């Protein structure tokens, strides 16, 4: 089975948030980057499928040079090769533009399955996978926790049976033919770490670099980010300060005399 996993490099969760001079994003100096969490689960699902059924796992990512580091991590975990769509100004593209870049770069690979995370931890648009499916003309299923069966066991023939998460603790099975796009929800499996051997091997694996401009997709956004701001507080938070013991005592007093729960 040939599986493509679209991954994204995002700022670390505890990155310092300072709005940059453009007022449209955060200052990236001193920011550490990491593999987007639900994409890590998508990669894990792909590697498990490969272990069970054989085949190839290809990771694809768009972004500037630093994205190469996250691609190497994915290769070190076990992906076979990678495609890096190089762009220093990805922010000029909206969700449709980025999906068009990805779709253009993976179209000729004729993969059986395309996986990606449910949403990114930075922009959180939650739609790249669904748009890529639409652009490639293949079916999709989103919020997938588990790929339960492939191939003959499935009524649709050359297909998949997947477990989809619904709201409020409900689930559903979906069958769909391949090729297909799945967006993966976190939590079904344990993520693996790269082994020392994997890290060593990753250095020799192929990373195909394509400049975004070579793909013939112009940014042409229909939705543009106007400005970012720090959020307004919805409630007036009383910050209880002092040493841990002082803050704890102050909170207990509030719980006793203001909230009246103790």
């Amino acid at each position: 089975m040939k599986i493509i996993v679209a991954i994204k490099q995002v700022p670390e969760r505890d990155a310092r948030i300072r709005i940059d001079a453009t007022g449209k994003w955060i200052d990236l100096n001193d920011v550490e980057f990491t593999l987007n969490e639900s994409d890590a689960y998508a990669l894990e699902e792909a590697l498990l499928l490969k272990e069970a059924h054989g085949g190839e796992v290809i990771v694809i990512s768009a972004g500037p040079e630093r994205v190469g580091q996250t691609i190497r991590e994915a290769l070190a975990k076990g992906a076979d090769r990678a495609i890096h769509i190089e762009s220093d100004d990805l922010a000029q593209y909206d969700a449709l533009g980025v999906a068009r870049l990805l779709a253009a770069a993976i179209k000729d690979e004729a993969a059986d399955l395309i996986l990606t995370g449910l949403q990114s931890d930075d922009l959180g648009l939650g739609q790249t996978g669904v748009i890529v499916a639409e652009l490639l003309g293949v079916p999709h299923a989103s919020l997938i926790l588990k790929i339960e069966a492939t191939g003959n066991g499935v009524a649709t023939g050359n297909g998949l049976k997947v477990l989809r998460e619904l709201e409020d603790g409900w689930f559903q099975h979906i069958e769909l033919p391949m090729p297909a796009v799945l967006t993966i929800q976190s939590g079904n499996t344990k993520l693996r770490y790269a082994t020392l051997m994997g890290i060593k091997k990753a250095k020799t694996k192929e990373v195909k670099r394509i400049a975004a401009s070579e793909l013939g997709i112009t940014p042409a956004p229909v939705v543009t980010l106007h400005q970012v701001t720090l959020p307004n507080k919805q409630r007036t938070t009383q910050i209880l300060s002092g040493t841990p013991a002082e803050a704890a005592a102050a909170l207990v007093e509030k719980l006793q005399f203001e909230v009246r729960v103790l």
Partner: protein
Amino acid sequence: MSSVLVILESKNGEISRISWEALAAAHTLAAGLGLPLDAALIGLASVDKITGKPPRTLFTVDHALLRDYTADGFTEAYTQLIQHLKPAYVVLPHTYQVRDFAPALATRFNEVLISDVIGLTPSTPSPIFVRQLLQGKLNASYQHTSDGPCFLSVQAGAFRADASDAAPAAIESFRPNLEPAQIRTQPSQPFRASAQTVDLSTAAILVSVGRGIKEQANLPIVEELAAALGAELAASRPICDNGWLPMERQVGSSGQTVAPKVYLAIGISGAIQHLVGMKGSQCIVAINKDENAPIFEVADYGIVGDLFEIVPALTAAIRKAKP
């Protein structure tokens, strides 16, 4: 004349609460832009009652191939309705179902869904839509710049559904042309994984733990706090994903929705998926080392600092205070 179209969602014959919130948001947008508002609905929901101000027309979209939700069926049916009505704006509730088909629907029109909207200003010529970035640490305003329909989904709890019931709207049925071959996925009946044995919604006090606890071996410090308070233990998604606590203790959009008297959020940053599950709590206490964590935006009381120092101190102080 152009219009605003709001797409409502029905589940088990009921229109969901967040659909009424989307209707309220769509009314705000339509009124600000001086546009009429229509609504649409797939499914067999009872439509004799509209919560809030009614739309001009409610389009009931019906076809045998739409009885079970599929992304393909809903995308195609709503594509045809939008081609028929030509609205300037399409407003949807940000549910799991909507996020499954709405991006494909927008793509059919060479448009992009502005997802998870928490605020809107209907300024002309182009309204401003606010959504969150970086797990709620930033707000971002977006504008739509093309001539095609603008698609947006609204986050749960961001807009207040109008309370009063109103007269039924004009109802018109719309039958899309669908072929079985267009539906490529086969959904099975939804199910619940296991009987829920913990009902967090009835607890008066919840001690809820998040990523900040770092590892499972550290859980006893929050368990002791919960015991001292007589509280139930709850968690944010990553804790349950890791298997440190069972899924049934998860609070948030994929877990339980709670509204206790006091909610103590410990080491929880407060991403929107968590906030929608707990922000109805009467009193929210947040303990977090990051003073910019979004949880402090909804908290009544906050302690900024290391939970490994503060939680044991709090447990000790509670034991001392309790008779």
